[in-house]
């Protein structure tokens, strides 16, 4: 009887959890067939896009020529990669699990097909899942996207699922360890915004009518919003290492520029305590203002409480729990909320209001804000909701916002504030209507 009572919630919970969080490609229990398998000349390695196909068929060439994921493994064995590895005491970064976790489709040897090569870096199956699971379904003339996903293809059209996948490396998690030791050895600082980075990757598909017949095309707002909420929850999960092991907690969870600034600029009243790298939480508050206003203030308070709890470990667990519950509710709201054309505009308005009210902004916060504004304003233009002249004016404002963030070492919050004012003035049609 006792055993049953314990088991029961698990049985009920398991399918729900499975539906909400599909297994990440790298964790799939299937064979990985390698880039050569997908990227043969008959399939996704056509030199030219096909005219009468539902997909472009030149995806491999797009990836190889323009997508930096294709260079992920080569970066490890390049001069910089070797230098970083050397400082970490790693002789061969090209075979070191700690590096390969994110710089290759790193799966157990037993699951690697004959055409699989680690050297392909972050290839097709890093994002789309193990080909061994879905290839047979996929190559059928009658194949459908839903059928492929059911067979094990990763559902990248679901914003939350894509966010979890990308952030597993671009923010790190328990199995993709991103720590301050890595940074100290010279690894570049991580920076990510799902919608911006998806577009910059660049996309290797053409979202035309037949694409949309087969798969949903997630709205830009949904990608941005889910990216922020998932990142915020990932940060909370990473705070397990916020408890010091030696004298310090894991410093990679803290805002880089809070400490990394020359002393010559000290004495301006900046707090003497490190700040959490909590830009995704700040962004999530804005997401809530748009799709779940009742959650916005609790999340805002939670963010403040979390910052305070860093100095008071006894509070941390409670604060984290409450915040994560609010974020989970926001995530539910995000997936339940039907896409509406007004969401992007509302978010831009709320972002500008929030960013201008909170000046001076920490650099990483400002960076998240800039990427959000840029991608959402551009989406408004693409959707025809922002006229070309207004978009041209907005572009000039966005350029100034980006220019203010061009160099993190000389970043001046005042310049950013002026650029935000200019952008707000350029977008009266968006900013006049409050969300």
């Amino acid at each position, binding site marked *: 009887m006792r055993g049953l009572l314990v088991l029961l919630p698990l049985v009920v919970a398991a399918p729900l959890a499975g539906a909400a969080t599909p297994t990440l490609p790298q964790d799939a229990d299937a064979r990985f067939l390698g880039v050569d398998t997908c990227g043969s000349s008959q399939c996704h390695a056509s030199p030219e896009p096909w005219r009468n196909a539902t997909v472009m068929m030149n995806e491999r060439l797009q990836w190889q020529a323009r997508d930096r994921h294709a260079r992920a493994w080569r970066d490890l064995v390049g001069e910089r990669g070797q230098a970083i590895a050397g400082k970490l005491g790693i002789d061969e970064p090209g075979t070191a699990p700690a590096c390969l976790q994110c710089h290759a489709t790193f799966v157990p040897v037993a699951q690697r097909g004959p055409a699989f090569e680690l050297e392909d870096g972050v290839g097709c199956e890093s994002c789309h899942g193990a080909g061994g699971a879905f290839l047979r379904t996929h190559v059928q003339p009658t194949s459908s996207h839903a059928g492929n996903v059911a067979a094990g293809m990763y559902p990248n059209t679901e914003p939350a699922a894509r966010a979890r996948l990308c952030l597993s490396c671009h923010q790190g998690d328990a199995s993709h360890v991103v720590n301050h*030791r890595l940074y*100290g050895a010279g690894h570049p600082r991580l920076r990510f915004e799902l919608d911006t980075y998806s577009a910059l990757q660049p996309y290797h598909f053409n979202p035309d009518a037949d694409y949309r017949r087969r798969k949903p095309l997630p709205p830009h707002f949904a990608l941005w919003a889910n990216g922020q909420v998932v990142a915020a929850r990932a940060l909370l999960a990473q705070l397990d290492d916020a408890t010091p092991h030696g004298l310090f907690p894991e410093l990679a969870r803290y805002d880089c520029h809070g400490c990394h600034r020359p002393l010559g600029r*000290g*004495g301006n009243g900046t707090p003497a305590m490190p700040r959490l790298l909590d830009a995704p939480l700040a962004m999530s508050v804005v997401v809530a203002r748009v799709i779940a206003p009742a959650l916005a203030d609790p999340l805002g308070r939670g963010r403040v409480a979390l910052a305070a709890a860093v100095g008071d470990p006894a509070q941390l667990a409670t604060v984290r729990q409450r915040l994560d519950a609010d974020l989970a509710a926001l995530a539910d709201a995000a997936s339940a909320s039907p896409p509406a054309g007004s969401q992007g505009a509302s978010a831009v308005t709320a972002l500008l209001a929030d960013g201008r009210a909170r000046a001076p902004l920490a650099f990483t916060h400002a960076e998240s804000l800039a990427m959000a504004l840029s991608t959402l304003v551009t989406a408004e233009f693409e959707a025809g909701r922002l006229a070309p002249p207004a978009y041209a004016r907005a572009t000039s404002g966005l350029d100034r916002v980006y220019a203010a963030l061009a160099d993190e070492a000389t970043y001046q919050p005042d310049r950013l504030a002026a650029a935000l004012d200019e952008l707000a003035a350029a977008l009266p049609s968006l900013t006049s209507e409050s969300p």
Partner: protein
Amino acid sequence: MMFHRREPSRVAGGGRGAHRASLSLIAALLLGAACAAAAEEDGIARYLGVKTCAGSTCHGAGGASDSRVLQNEFQTWHRSDRHAQAYTALVSERGQRIARNLGLDDAAAAPQCLACHATFVAVELRGKRFSLSDGVGCESCHGPASRWLGQHVTGEASRADNIAAGMYPTEDPVRRAELCLGCHLGGGERFADHRLMGAGHPRLSFELDTFTRLQPAHFRVDEDYRARKRVAPGLRVWAVGQLAAARRFLELFASGEHPGNGVFPEFAFFDCHACHHAFTTPRWQPRASNPLPPGTPHLNDANLLMLSALAAGLDAELGMRLDDALASLHRASVESRDAAVAAARDLDAVLGTLATAIAGTALDARDPATVLRGLIERGLAGDYNDYGAAEQATMAIAAMVDALAETGDIDAARRAALTLKVAALYDATANQDTWQPTAFVGALGTLHDALD
């Protein structure tokens, strides 16, 4: 109606032609009488204030005297010694800004600021002419004057008598280090924590021999000075200063009195520039003295690195023990607070041995040269690539060159030539934010070549 006492200076206003000895005698007698009156009869050591010492025929002369003491000590302090501006700094724009950032209304009324920026003593211990606004004045260093002023002005008391009556033995490097480090590193109520730094207080930096010279000295070390006071050679002053700083640092760290804030330790114990540098090309390099991986803040080991060079120069085995203990401290700092405290105590025990060794040796003419070479070689090997270490090494090398001149090991021309090379080290470390370890190592190489 106010009761005005006649100022000794007016009595002594006989003009420049008057015989200085008789003037001094008159002044001494008068001042002695005045100060005997000022000093309470209860035997409590009271602080009488700068004005009491700075009579024009005592220590407030306009120019240097050819008597035993310069007599213009007040002028030197007032014009050239930054201690005289310690209180003014509190009421300056910057001082007030720091205070505001700390949530204080007025730095000049805050005990935590006054503790180091004035002769901050209990109100009942302040004499009638005492003023906090004098900053770090005569009695901050020389001790409360009430119990020795009388015998001091008559000229009859010996140095030992004055010290017995409460004058502070500043000529003893051990006691001097204790005194200076009380503020220049901290202890007890005084501690420049990271909160203070974050509010805008400048970083603390100190080396006993260099700072004694730069203060500047308001005394002349000549024959009669040496007859009265024991003068420690520069190498000893430097060594004692480093030992005192390192041991005080370890004690402050291990005491637990400055536990830090929440999940973070007190940052003031760590190398400032390990964190406070702009994002530039990666700077971390493996270092013999520090086994920690990249991205790991490390305890400020600048003084300990200096002592490593000293110990190795005196006794190779002791040098190795010190290096091992220092590496253990670094390793323990990423294990746990308890491990770090235990390692700090172990390291302090090694420093205790070094202190005993120094106390029992003459630190003869050979040693400055040995220490100088050790410092240069370690610097060339990249051991001083932290700004704090480079800064200490620069001051140490300058002190060693002066020490060599002091012992007669090098002549004036050679000293001038070497001082020029040392100036390049100062140039390389002039700006803590933009300094380049490669430029520092380059300047060390030039100095190394000049020594051959």
